[in-house]
């Protein structure tokens, strides 16, 4: 009994739903990523009257740009190193010891990761700016000299603020590696006579070393891409880095050629680091072998217990308590630095939420942009995941690779590429919400693709095949089987994009106008103009939105919000 008439498939009927959806995703990928990137390369090679490498030779020879490159590398290297120093002990303590308060350490890492770095930078300026910083003022007052003060406007200050955002990468990768090292590896060493420390040193750490290094490299890439903290801390100290130097090149008169060349140098560093991270991790990842059934061994800390606990508490204080407590205090005071208890007020919140229409608009714009970008990226990501995993199109792997390109593009570079591409077209997108949407969509597309890819890998193809053989069409199968099964994974991906998008600064800073102001740009501009009390209030509202989003995600989506390697 054959119920329907035969239909040629595949290769014959090109015009069907599957091909339309796949085609649309590829077009989106080209418009969002490929064409802007080509514009950037073109812009870097265009010297005004022909093609050449003049821009590159200027960027690589002039002190101005060379210093920026050097500062970025210094910042990245120190940040990566300190991320290991903080992240590895925390991970080990949580996964492998009987440390009290392990949940609290986990929470510290999560909150540090979620805190917008520019917010932490502003908080630390309030605490440690040379003269007005409250802790500095207190230390001066208490000791009578300024020997013990700490100037935040310095490279150490910048490293401090940045590492608070990047150590969670090392922490997360190391802890997941540590929890998949099966105890039998360590027990084998112990039965042969190795002591606990010897085992730790010669078995455990070598096994997770690829994960540690991988986390440090991701930390490096993220650290050098952060525009906000580098502008807030670096510029007053005259420390220019790649993002701030590229930003300065867009000041009137804009130097597109130099900006593009410098951007590509920036991209080269990022891509190199990510390449090492991938190949190193892929080649030397022993721990994945153990798989799910791994049973990690827990060590009794004994006398080491309290020193380690103190270390964890210290990290919490520096990474979470100090920034948030100071922002909270500042946001409720009439004027920071005066007697706190006599100056309590709610007027800062009133100001940014009700009086000042710029900040009100910024909040709404960011909510709109983050919602649209997250939805868009998840949809396109699903289509690209489908092409990669479920079709036999020639070049499907290539499509997948291209969709991951934005991982190698720092936000400000993405903005530089978009500006040049869209300025060439007769469409007037510059300064509109549309170009911000394009920037966010392009930046966060890899997160959408990865989430969808991971969700789709969980679905055995036979689940779809059995719908097909029962008579379901492609679109019916997608609607009834594939998408419902991917739902929680896609939802997690949506949150994964929404959270960084709501506080995006690196790309927005080049693309906004007064009409398309976003939350992070508003914070930055208010700070630049010295409104530190309203800034604190706005920053906390920003944090509250993220908190609410994650809370809702846990309620609705079953709480599967994993971290990824992109932030603002």
């Amino acid at each position, binding site marked *: 009994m*054959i119920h329907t008439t035969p239909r040629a498939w595949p290769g014959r009927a090109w015009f069907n739903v599957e091909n339309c959806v796949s085609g649309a995703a590829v077009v989106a990928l080209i418009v969002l990523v490929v064409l802007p990137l080509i514009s950037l390369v073109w812009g870097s090679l265009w010297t005004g009257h022909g093609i050449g490498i003049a821009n590159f030779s200027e960027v690589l020879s002039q002190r101005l740009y060379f210093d920026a490159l050097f500062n970025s590398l210094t910042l990245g290297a120190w940040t990566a190193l300190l991320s290991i120093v903080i992240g590895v002990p925390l991970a080990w303590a949580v996964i492998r010891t009987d440390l009290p308060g392990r949940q609290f350490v986990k929470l510290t890492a999560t909150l540090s990761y979620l805190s917008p770095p520019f917010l932490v930078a502003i908080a630390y300026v309030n605490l440690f700016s040379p003269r007005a910083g409250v802790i500095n003022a207190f230390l001066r007052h208490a000791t009578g000299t300024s020997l013990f003060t700490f100037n935040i406007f310095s490279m150490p200050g910048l490293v401090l603020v940045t590492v608070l955002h990047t150590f969670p990468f090392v922490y997360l990768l190391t802890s997941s590696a540590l929890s998949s090292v099966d105890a039998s590896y360590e027990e084998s060493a112990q039965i042969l006579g190795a002591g606990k420390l010897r085992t730790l040193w010669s078995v455990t750490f070598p096994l997770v070393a690829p994960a540690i290094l991988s986390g440090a490299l991701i930390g490096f890439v993220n650290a050098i891409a952060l525009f906000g903290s580098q502008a807030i801390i670096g510029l007053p100290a005259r420390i220019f880095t790649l993002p701030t130097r590229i930003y300065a090149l867009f000041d009137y008169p804009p130097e597109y050629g130099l900006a593009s060349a410098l951007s590509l140098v920036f991209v080269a560093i990022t891509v190199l680091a990510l390449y090492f991270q991938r190949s190193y991790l892929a080649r030397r990842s022993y721990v994945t072998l153990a798989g799910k059934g791994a049973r990690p061994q827990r060590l009794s800390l004994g006398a080491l217990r309290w020193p380690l606990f103190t270390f964890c508490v210290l990290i919490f204080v520096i990474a979470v308590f100090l920034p948030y407590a100071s922002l909270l205090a500042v946001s409720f005071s009439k004027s920071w630095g005066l007697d706190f208890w006599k100056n309590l007020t709610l007027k800062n919140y009133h100001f940014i939420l009700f009086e000042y229409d710029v900040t009100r608009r910024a909040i709404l714009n960011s909510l709109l942009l983050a919602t649209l970008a997250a939805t868009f990226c998840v949809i396109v990501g699903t289509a690209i995941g489908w092409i990669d995993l479920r079709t036999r199109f020639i070049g499907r792997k290539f499509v997948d690779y291209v969709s991951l390109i934005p991982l190698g593009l720092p936000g400000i570079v993405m903005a530089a590429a978009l500006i040049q591409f869209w300025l060439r077209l007769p469409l007037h997108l510059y300064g509109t919400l549309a170009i911000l949407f394009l920037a966010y969509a392009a930046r966060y597309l890899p997160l959408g693709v990865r989430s969808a890819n991971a969700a789709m890998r969980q679905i055995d193809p036979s689940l779809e095949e059995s719908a097909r053989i029962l*008579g379901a069409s492609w679109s019916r199968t997608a609607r009834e089987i594939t998408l419902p099964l991917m739902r929680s994974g896609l939802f997690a991906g949506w949150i994964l994009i929404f959270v960084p998008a709501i506080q995006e600064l690196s790309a927005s800073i080049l693309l906004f106008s007064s009409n398309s102001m976003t939350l992070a740009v508003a914070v930055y501009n208010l700070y630049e103009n010295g409104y530190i009390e309203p800034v604190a209030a706005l920053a906390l509202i920003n944090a509250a939105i993220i908190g609410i989003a994650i809370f809702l995600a846990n309620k609705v989506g079953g709480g599967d919000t994993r971290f990824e390697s992109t932030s603002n």
Partner: protein
Amino acid sequence: MSEILLRNLSKSYSGTEGDHAAVSEVSLTIVSGEFVTLLGPSGCGKTTTLRLIAGYLVPDAGEIRVAGRLLSSPKSVVPPESRGMGMVFQNYAVWPHKTVFENVAFGLMLRNVSKTEARERVGRVLELVNLAGLDSRYPSELSGGQQQRVALARSLVVEPAVLLLDEPLSNLDAKLRERMRAELKTLQRRTGITFIYVTHDQSEALALSDHIAVMHAGRLQQYGTPREVYCEPANHIVADFMGLVNLLPARLVEVTGTASVFESGQVRMTIPRPSGMQVGARADLSIRPETIRLAASEADLPGAFPARVLEQTYLGNLNEYVIAAGETQLRVQADAQAFFSVGSEVFALIDAQQCRAFASADTDTP
């Protein structure tokens, strides 16, 4: 009725070391209403053949016709959803987000069957597979065997002309497998649906099938009834795959009329020879362990040859021996009562009627 015809079917996959032929030039006629098994070791091309029949794969060459209608050829393939077949997967593939009822009713919904009729038909088929009353359960609340029954019910409810089964029992434990095996056979008899069943388990194939297609290295080795493939294997590959076998290198030493004598070391046997085999040609003899009888003295087994016991293993229902006659070693299955200790002299007699001789395939002898 809808006879299934595979003609010169070939399919290869491109891999890192060039193309790898998964199926080459398979031709097969499957009579409607039969229980047919594709049997072979993993990687022999049986699953690829099944997926070609289902329409998930496009053949590189050859064609598939059902009831005379061309369904697959390199140029065009009727998609799975238009073939009116059913398929049961190794991992059940029961949709975890749908209840048992929703799983089974899915195919009926696609065919716009009315709600009341669907309810009735689902009820009937669930009864058929012994799942009555579990309609509103989710797959995660069912055992492996129950999930397999849901998968079966889901395929059967739409009354396909052909049901394809890809190692459906391999994920079940031994007891359950035995029971499901019996149920599958009854189900096939009762519904009259053509079953095409893929397995690597020869005892499963022997127990279930009307016809068995033995496959190896992408090629069809033999197509015949269970009796034929076991007792009259077409070549040493089939003989070797269908249960335990002694494969002895031998030489054709004498031909008188239709009778031909083979010699392997000290063992001489009269076995029909493959057509065209000349005296002096090398051959492989396939001797099943259960066709060799052992005795303590020659008087008990006239015509037996002397041998020595090298190994003895007690298997409960039988005694297994490895014996040596000169250079030749043979595995023997004797009944549990007959006991010979290791090192003792015995006399062995091979039932030549149950043995086969094949042209030697030195390079391929396992």
